[in-house]
């Protein structure tokens, strides 16, 4: 059974058409990430799924049941917000039990679920604290715990890591991945960070300007992007785009080469002047100018390259992507 089906979902705010004919499916137990630049409509899409906004047209099915007119609390979903959105006047326990009390669940059931969730998230010592007495990471865990206790058909995460610092973000990312394995629940996760998308997702949905650009597994999208936008959005550092004319004297198309596919080669086709070097220890990122175009090369290991140096890069032509003028991928 599918956990979520969207059929031609549209959403407009007045004259602004925010979501355009979104059609997608989330399988049971799948971790789906919506990714896209800010303003692409990914958060709006999540809010439409949650029922916090009504779809202007189209059909939303959760767990096989059409929910267009069902209020958020009855959709069998739980949501984790970017700002945590913990109730400031309730203790951690109170935050986690509020929805269950609202559903009139028996007391023993509530206690059992809270105990289970707090064990999973290591929240046991904090159950009687208030949100203001917790650190950012702890608050995020409480927000996740509040979602877990509801035992929803579908988890919704709205950029849950963007308020955390880098180290904590990585830990929490792993925790969320573990959680997904442990709960075996369907999850939708919204982010603008392509690293989070690549590392967490079973399936990535790339959105731009309210439209689905491509859907697929992380490696499918990485190895086989449908268009220039997807190719440029996924991968870090992002793909280099060079006009075809630069490489073979003619042609209107754009050639895309991933930074890791460039290598140093004395007779390579790309003559470049190094403008900046990032030495990361394991990798060396070389940012260089090929005529007027910035090119990033990711070289494995450590290299003694200095700014201003003249280099030649080569690449394997079968690893290059070709895009037409409209940005569509050419075979």
């Amino acid at each position, binding site marked *: 059974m599918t956990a979520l089906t969207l059929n031609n979902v549209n959403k407009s705010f007045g004259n602004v058409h925010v979501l355009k004919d979104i059609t997608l499916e989330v399988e049971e137990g799948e971790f789906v990430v919506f990714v896209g630049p800010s303003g692409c409509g990914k958060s709006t899409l999540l809010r439409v799924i949650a029922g916090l906004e009504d779809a202007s047209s189209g059909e939303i099915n959760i767990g096989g049941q059409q929910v267009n007119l069902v209020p958020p609390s009855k959709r069998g979903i739980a*949501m984790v917000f970017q700002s945590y*959105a913990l109730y400031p006047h309730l203790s951690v326990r109170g935050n986690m039990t509020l929805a269950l009390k609202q*559903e009139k669940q028996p007391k023993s059931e509530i206690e059992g679920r809270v105990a289970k969730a707090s064990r999973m998230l290591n929240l046991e010592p904090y159950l009687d604290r208030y949100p203001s007495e917790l650190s950012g990471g702890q608050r995020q865990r409480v927000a996740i715990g509040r979602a877990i206790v509801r035992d929803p058909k579908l988890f919704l995460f709205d950029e849950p890591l963007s308020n955390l610092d880098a180290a904590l973000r990585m830990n929490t990312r792993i925790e969320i991945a573990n959680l997904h394995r442990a709960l075996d629940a369907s999850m939708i996760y919204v982010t603008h960070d392509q690293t989070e998308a690549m590392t967490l997702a079973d399936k990535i949905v790339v959105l731009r300007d309210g439209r689905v650009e491509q859907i697929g597994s992380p490696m499918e999208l990485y190895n086989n992007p449908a268009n220039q936008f997807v190719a440029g959005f996924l991968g870090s550092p992002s793909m280099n785009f060079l006009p075809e004319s630069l490489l073979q004297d003619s042609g209107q198309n754009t050639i895309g080469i991933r930074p890791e596919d460039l290598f140093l080669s004395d007779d390579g086709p790309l003559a470049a002047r190094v403008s900046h070097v990032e030495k990361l220890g394991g990798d060396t990122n070389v940012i260089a100018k090929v005529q007027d175009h910035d090119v990033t090369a990711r070289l494995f290991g450590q290299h003694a390259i200095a700014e201003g140096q003249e280099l030649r890069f080569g690449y394997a032509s079968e690893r290059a992507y070709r895009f037409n003028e409209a940005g569509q991928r050419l075979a």
Partner: protein
Amino acid sequence: MNKARHNPLNMVAMHGALILYTLIALFPVFVILINSFKSRRAIFREPLALPNADSFSMIGYETVMKQGDFFLYFQNSMIVTVASLSFILLFGAMAAYALSEYQFKGNLIMGLYLALGIMIPIRIGTVAILEMMVATGLVNSLWALILVYTAQGLPLAVFILSEFMRQVSDDLKNAGRIDGLSEYTIFFRLVLPLVRPAMATVAVFNMIPIWNDLWFPLILAPAEETKTLTLGSQVFIGQFVTDWNAVLSALSMAILPVLVLYVIFSRQLIRGITSGAVK
């Protein structure tokens, strides 16, 4: 840290200015208080002297207690002030929430219409209000005053509270919706506690004018059993003879409850005033 705060000269100047202002502000209250404990002759001979063994007299308080039903007046004032404040806060907060949270046709117009009341003094409509109260038979009842004060306080309350309510995080309200809370529960349990400083600000700004008002009690409810404290005190002010002892004693006693309420609200009030500016 701010350098100016650590400079002792600045500290002295700052505190000097604040102390000076406090003295100026408290001076009339002080004069009222000390003179309420003096005999009539002493009030006029040395208005600024503290009461001593010679001039000390409780005659003012005795007169107040004997003349008229001072406790009834006090109770009336209390009922009117507390009831009006409750209505202003309740309805003002609800209207403000609707204006700030829900998108509906005429939202902006409605907001402007409600704000219009801030600019038009309610006293202009006194004659019409009196006619309405006569027609509805509310004259000489405390309800007349409560309704008028509620109407008078609502515009500013809606204006201030809707500004604060816009700052309450949408995520929090949405979390409540997903958890199955009703809109009323979200309003009372999530939003109201977060705008408490603003509520206190509105309460204090409304409380003092209502407590001190003479105009509407005099016009709408001058009957003996509905007199408020301010109106009740006027019996001691005659056209030819004024019983200053009694007036000052009545005023001293009238200050007390406002002071108590103010102390209750003031902590919240300060947070309310600064939270808008500092954040």
